[in-house]
Every structure is written in structure tokens, then in C-alpha cells.
């Protein structure tokens, strides 16, 4: 865990983004030199449709305190419909996660286009400050640790 001051908790957030819109939008944030928090690390996918939602659980299990999923605006998907499928899948998955007791407030879904550099910075900063307030996701870590120790899941 990375800590600036001893007492301030710095969340670790993974962002799953699509190559054509949000990744490019994040590039634009960089080109525009807009600053945002260091807590978010981006993983590139060809399309939000590719994002297997088990990856989200893997991220939590690995120690992530929050997750961002971001892709092209509806109707703008580079592959025409990948983001629609991702969104539909997310609607179902979200309810299931909630039912299972996972804190879905820690997962942020956004649409960021290749032209919205400033928006990406806002999404990052918003999510970081929200997760910082919510604190570390200790419940999931405890559960993951328990499952590993009990050899119920094998790494």
C-alpha cells in the first residue's frame, strides 16, 4: 500500500478502459497536462465488451479498493455495439454483486470519449476522493484471505 502521510489512506484503484475512447481520452488528459491523482492505474482493452467481469473480482482480491470501468459513449463504440453489451452485462452483474454483499459503490462506470481529456481527470479525481472517504476495502481482503487460507481457491 502506498502512503503519502502515515495517517492518510491512499486508495489503489484499477481502471479498465477501452482503447478507442477512454484510453485515447486519457492520452488527451496527458497531452493537455491536466493533473490528477496517482492512485489509478489503467489497463487497456480493445473494447469494454471484452472486459470479463471476473477481472473485477480479481482486482478486489488483489487489493484494489476501487474500480473504474470506462468506454465509448453509447452509439460511438468503435466496434458498434461492444459498449452496449458491456453495459447490459454490468446491469445484471451489479445486482448480483450487490446480492453477494460486495460494495458496488466502489465500482464506477463512466463513458469518456477520446475528446474528453478533462472529463477523465474529473472521473479519476472524483473516484479517488470517494474511495478515500470510504476507506480501504478490508472486508474483501479478509474474505479473500480466508478463502485462500482455507484452500478453497487456489491462486
Amino acid at each position, binding site marked *: 500500500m502506498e502512503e503519502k502521510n502515515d495517517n492518510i489512506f491512499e486508495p*489503489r484503484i484499477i481502471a479498465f478502459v477501452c482503447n478507442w475512447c477512454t484510453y485515447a481520452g*486519457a492520452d488527451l488528459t496527458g497531452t493537455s497536462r491536466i493533473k490528477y491523482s496517482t492512485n489509478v492505474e489503467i489497463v487497456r482493452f480493445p473494447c469494454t465488451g471484452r472486459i470479463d467481469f471476473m477481472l473485477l473480482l*480479481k482486482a478486489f482480491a488483489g487489493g484494489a479498493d476501487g474500480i473504474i470501468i470506462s468506454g465509448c459513449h453509447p452509439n460511438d463504440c468503435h466496434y458498434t455495439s*461492444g459498449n452496449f453489451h458491456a453495459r447490459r452485462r454490468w446491469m445484471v452483474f451489479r445486482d448480483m454483486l450487490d446480492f453477494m454483499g460486495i460494495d458496488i459503490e466502489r465500482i464506477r462506470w463512466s463513458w469518456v470519449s477520446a475528446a474528453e481529456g478533462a472529463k477523465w481527470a474529473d472521473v479519476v479525481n472524483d473516484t479517488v476522493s470517494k474511495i478515500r472517504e470510504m476507506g480501504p476495502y478490508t472486508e474483501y481482503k479478509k474474505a479473500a484471505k480466508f478463502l485462500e487460507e482455507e484452500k478453497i481457491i487456489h491462486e
Partner: protein
Amino acid sequence: MSKIGVFICHCGENISATVDCERVAKSASEMEGVAFATDYKYMCSDPGQSLIKNAIREHHLDGVVVGSCSPRMHEPTFRRACSEAGLNPYLCEIANLREHVSWVHEKGEATTLKAIDIVKGVVEKVRRNKPLNAIEVPITKKALVIGGGIAGIQASLDIANCGQKVILIEKGPSIGGHMSQLSETFPTLDCSQCILTPRMVEVAQHPNITLYTYAELDKLDGFIGNFKATIRLKAKSVDYNKCTGCGLCTTKCPQKKIPSEFNEGLGLRTAIFTPFPQAVPNKPAIDKEHCNYYQKGKCKVCQKFCPTGAIEYDKPDEFITEDIGAVIVTTGFNVLKTDFFPEYGYGKYKDVITGLQFERLASASGPTLGEIRRPSDGQIPKKIVFISCCGSRDPAKGIPYCSKICCMYTAKHAMLYQHKVHDGESTIFYMDVRAGGKNYEEFVRRAVEEDHVNYVRGRVARVYEKNGKLIVKGVDTLLSAKPVEIEADMVVLATAGVANKGAEELAQKMHISYDPYHFFAEAHPKLKPVETNTAGIFLAGACQSPKDIPETVASASGAAVKAVSLLSQPTLVREPIIAVVNRCAPPMFSTCVGCFMCETICPYNAIEHEEIKDRRTGKVIKTVAKINPGLCQGCGTCVSFCRSKSIDIQGYTNEEMFAEVTALLNK
């Protein structure tokens, strides 16, 4: 055991100003699987690339991670460098340390630690990357152009002149399209047919072009480079091998009062007809719906008089199949008729006509031989009112877009009228005048200044008839909304350009997208205006959106180049970032159960059915999914959909992505 090389670029100072590049390289060298790590000022430069190539050779690297600017910038550069050093390019990945780290964070410990994390994530992914080879798909060297207007004609000629074979199909009996109906074209006032007919003849005579008129696309199967088109050749009732085009039959046909489509209903034709004298091919066809023989079983006069015995009744439509490599859709557009407008008479008033009907009046080969005359009584109108934006730019009528060409052709019509009727008075009611092309603004100014056309800015609320005159009630907004009432002899409506009837069905046959107005959808409105989302099918002309002749010709040539660039390659080479369905040993053959959920969501129809058969008996054991490497674009939606995890996408496999995510979080 992997041997990955990690190369951290300073990018001058762009990265090194905030990220401690040496430290990142040092951390990388301690990561599992990394055999070599270094940093350098400009990795993308020649010496930088040499650094990578030498390292690959010296250390026998089996993977490369470059910590640099965005992969959207230099991934191809570094992949090429690896390729030149003998390493499969898909074993090289980029860690984005500039746009995503150094440019967005302040200098500090957190920034450098993040850079190290990101490099670690990519290293873990590359450890699981597999070498991939570009895919080669065979190509049929023939193009199909659908629609024989100026766009189709231009595209066919361009492709044929590149030495490639073309099939041009046109649903009417002649090619030429709307351009053949025009009298003169703006801004030069060239005679439309004079510039068009030489091209029409060229198409008919070109050795590389096969022309099928009175033909429609019945089915299109297959994929890029390998289409199979089924074409319906409608029965013309005339054997073109025997017909000499003498035209005697058209003079003898007793059905003389059929409204001529070519003359937009202002003239008449016979049941056996050629649409216009310069038709290509200049041979007639029988319109079964109006022919006495086909409707009532009587007549057969044309057959009696034909000197070569070319008339053949009751032949069925013929179907032919052709193998095609590329398709260009040039089916054009249409304009609304006057019956669409309740405020302008619902089509009741004979002297309220469309711009296209006015073209026919002005045309020397038209129903009035080029004289502007009222359709009701044949008198020459002394006062004409032109109304722009009829239907266009009107969300209440369901047509919010601008039809682009009307301001120009309305100015042209007014000018032609003034040239032909010297004491005539023309008024144009407009909202804006859109004259953006080359010499277009000057053309409109000529209408105003030299030909004294009255431009009144305002809409027309109503047109109704009284005592043989048309009362036009409009407004002049530039004179503070003063109502203007004109007693006109003729009213010409610049009606909206709309998609052809049948456009939706055609698009669905070819699996191309279309917008809510049934214009075909381009792949990208700015950068891919002549391509569709379906690989191998291109668009040109007004079927994509209303456009004038120069734009149509330009887009047709553009689409032709796209087609030729496809056809002129020996094989089609594509990036191997595609989905793959697993195969394994019998008796499983594949974990795929054949549910074909993937097929329902693939936007590119890239999922095919493969029957796994018993080798000896030929019996089908199971039907599983198979990805067509020619069509798959690599979005990966099917991967997340598959319930049995039988599909994975090369370059972003589950193994690679899980490893990357886990690595980012573990210290």
C-alpha cells in the same frame, strides 16, 4: 522461463522530469522474467531502436516492454524494430509512462512507484503473450457496383481503368440516374447529358465492365474478398442479342398514356419503352404492369412489327451468381413529391411542381422541349415562385437535416427561367442560402445581380389555387416580418432529398448499417466517409447523404480506390488481434457447446458454424462456433459472452489480462 527486455525511455525530459527513469529500469531488472533492463533518452530514435535490437540479439530476448509514450503513438514503431531483430512483433508491448503518468502527475515518489507498477503489469502480460502472425485471406479480383448513376459510373470506370474487373448492376432499364434527368448543372451550366452520356457509353464499351441493367441484387453472402452475389436479371421481354434498338416497337405500342418516370410524371411513355433517347443500353424493355399482353392477354403488336423477332414474352426472371471481392453501393437518392406537403396542396395543384420536375421542363429533351410551360394549361408562366427548404431542416416533418443541393439548384432554376422567359419574374423564398462549393457563391450572386431573381427571406405558409393562379402566402423576415402575397403562375418546391425506396431492405441484405433516414452509414463521418462498418463494402454518392455532382464523383473515385487497394493485393493481410474458438482432442473437440450466443452479438457476422464430423461415417457430432479471420475485428465482446469460456482473443487473452491486473496490485 521468460527473457524479457525492459526499455525505459526518458522521452527527452517529458518522462524523466517527473519519473525517476533509472530507478524504474533498476526495479524492472529485478522483476521476475526480466533478463535485461535499461533506460535511454530517446527510445524511438534510430540509436534507441538499435539499442533494443541489439539487446534482443545479444540477450536472446523473447519479449520486449518499452516504457514510453502512449502505444497509440509508437507501438507500430517498436513492433517493427523487434520484427527487424527477429522477434515476433506481438511479443512487444508498451507501458504508457508519458500520457498516463509523467504528464499527469507531479514529480515525486508516488509517480515513480506508479511507473514501476505499470511496467510490472505489462511485463507480466508479455510473459504470457504468444507470437502471432498476420492473417492472410484470399481475394476474388472482381468488384460489384450497385447502382448506375454518376457515382456508379465513375466508380466502375475508375476500377476498370486500374485493370480490375467490374460488374455494374442498375435496377432501371438504363444507367444514368438522376444526372441524366437534369438540364444544366451548376455552377458551370454545362448540359448535364452532354457530360454524362460519353461516360455512359464508355461504361457500356469498356472491356473490364460487365453491365447488367434491369437487374437487382437478390442476395449477398460471404465476406471481404470472398463475396457471393446473386443477381436477379428481371425479364425485359426483349432479347438484347437480337434487338438493334431501332425503336419501331415503341411507336406501335397502343398503351401510350403511361406517366413517364424519367419525366417525373410530366410526360408520357409507352409500355414497351426506353426511358430516354440517350439510354444506355439503347434497347427497350416491357413494363409488365401496363402492357396489354401481360395484363389482359391481348395485343402483341410489338412482336408483330419487330424486324428481328427480338420480342420474347413470358420469360422468367433469371438469376446469376458471381464471385466478388469488393462491393461499392451507389444506389443514390430521391426527392420528395409534392403530395408530401399539405400546406402546398397535397399534390392537388398541377402547377405546383418539384425541382426535379422543373429540370424536366427546362431540359431540351423534356416533355415541353425545353420551354417552361405550366403543366395545367401549357401557358408560359410570367411569375414563378420558388420555395426552398420544403421538408428539409424541418423536424416537425421528420427531416431535420439540410438537403445541401437545393439552394444551388433553385438559384440555377431561377436563372434558367429568366434566361428563357425574359419578361418573367421569379421569386425565391429562402431561409439561408448555402453556396459553399467552388464558384458556388459567385453563381448565386449572378442570379441576384445579373438575372434579377428576387430573393425573399421567409417561409411560405400556404399555397392555394384561385382562378387558375397560385396564391403564395409568405413572409419577408428582413422587412420585419411583413407578409408577402404573390399571385404566381407556377410554384417550384425544392423538396428534401430522401433515401430511395427499398434502401432499408438492400442495407439489410448486405448487413450494412443505415441511419434513421435510411441513408447508408459510413464507418466514420470524418475519416472514413466511403467505407462501411462491413469490411469490403464501400459507399459513394447520395445513398450516403444528399450531395452534389462534384462530391459524388469524388466519393465514387475514393470508393473505387478503396476497392482497388483491396483487389490489387495478392492476399488480404490483417492484424491477428482476433478471436479464436478453442479446439482440442476428441471426444470433446472443443469446449464450445454450440449455443451461438456469440453469433447473436457479433457486429461483424464473424461467427460461423462448423460441423465437427465423424471421419468415417460423416455424421455430425457437434456444431461449434468458428471465427472467420477475414471478418473479426477483435472487439472481444464474444469472449466475455461465452459461457463456457471457449473463445479467447489473441493479444488480449484471459491469461494475459488476469496476469496484468494481478501484477498491478501485488507488490
